[in-house]
């Protein structure tokens, strides 16, 4: 099944999922592009739209919200386990 993903700014490399997502579900953005979730992601949480290398900027609202603390693959759940403020 496909779940709505909300990306605010074209630069964003994460989107927020509007419903609970299971591994294998497609997350579909408003421009029609899709990313396949590689793991379960709770509603309201972030999914990586592309690969983000460890130390790389995680972008939401077109701004950096923190850095990846490990390599993140497209479709992965992004939260406290792989993203930190570290300003």
């Amino acid at each position: 099944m496909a779940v709505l993903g909300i990306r605010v700014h074209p630069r964003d490399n994460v989107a927020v999922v509007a419903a609970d997502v299971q591994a294998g579900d497609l997350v579909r953005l408003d421009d029609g592009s899709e990313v396949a979730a590689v793991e379960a992601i709770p509603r309201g949480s972030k999914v990586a739209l592309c690969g983000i290398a460890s130390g790389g900027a995680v972008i939401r609202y077109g701004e950096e919200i923190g850095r990846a603390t490990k390599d993140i693959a497209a479709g992965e759940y992004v939260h406290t386990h792989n993203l930190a403020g570290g300003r």
Partner: protein
Amino acid sequence: MSEDFVFQGWRRADGRMGIRNHCLVLATVACAAGVVREVWRRLPEVVSVEHAHGCGRGGPDLGLQVKTLAGLVQNPNVGAVVLVGLGCEVVSVRLLKGAVARSGKPLETVVIQEVGGSRKAADRAEGLARRLLGELESLPRERGTAADLMVGLECGGSDTFSGLTANPAVGKAVDRLVELGGTAILAETTEMIGALGPLLRLAESEEVAAKLKANVERQEARAREILGPLADGVLAPGNVEGGLTTIAEKSLGCIAKGGSSPIREVVDYGDRPSRQGLVVMDTPGYDIESLAGMAAAGAQAVLFTTGRGTPVGFPAVPVIKISSNSELFEAMPDDIDLDAGIVLAGKSIDEVGEQILGLLLRVARGQKTKAEVNGQAVFAIAQGGPAF
């Protein structure tokens, strides 16, 4: 809506317009709390305000206490006031009366130690409040417009949807209010940490930009000093459960409430803006203290977004609660006034923004908010300078 944004309010002696006409019974010091509560028990038509602040505090904190209490007394939603003090406190009824002398507002005082204790003080204050309530009833109403309104912006119990639905929808309502000549206050300096870039782009002048930068950097340094490595996550547990990971992420969603108008002025906690349009106030992220600062500045209403659900209200100032998701709206129908979660089901941010502006107008015309119906009205003053 421009021609239609009209309501009947109460013009105060200082020229500002109230959308409520309350008789405030205010304890100037914590020791007088029991008396104002007793007056409210006997006379629920009054708005009673008590707080936990007393003597033995530093100059800056006492200054904030006086400024905030004086500002609340002068809020245009307040038509008349009974100040209740103990008698030996620093922030006495006389001091406060002096601070608001120029407001031209009917104001009476009761001092517990002078009238012979709590019961007599309550009797006296009740009698004064009854008379003032009677006088307020005969005050004429006048036509008010958006240009008479100053609206505080606040969020509490945010989730990831707050920054996607409720906050940008409030931002849209604020854009429209500002177009119509109104004023909105974006506050919560703690929740600007990590979001300075977009704020500076809205700054109208270099002076505004410099003050914004100084406020946010000072608050960030303070957070680092006190919280250490935890500063990057100044988030409540509910925020993290809601899907927010970092403070910058929360902040970027938070400032969306301000919309896209130029920031015309940056004021200190509790200070009255001198400009109309979008202004920024330096307040803590803690919602109750932040509301007190905006009410002291003269805000007649507050647009308050929430993702997790909070029942918070404020004395004399209607607080309009907007949910970021529809589940919350359904789960807490008696606390939430409007659901912005419908954005997730395809409604546009513009459309929800118009709904918010429409609700603001109805509240200005007298419709009670859920927090007013529930009698949710808690009061606290920022301490040690704005904190977090």
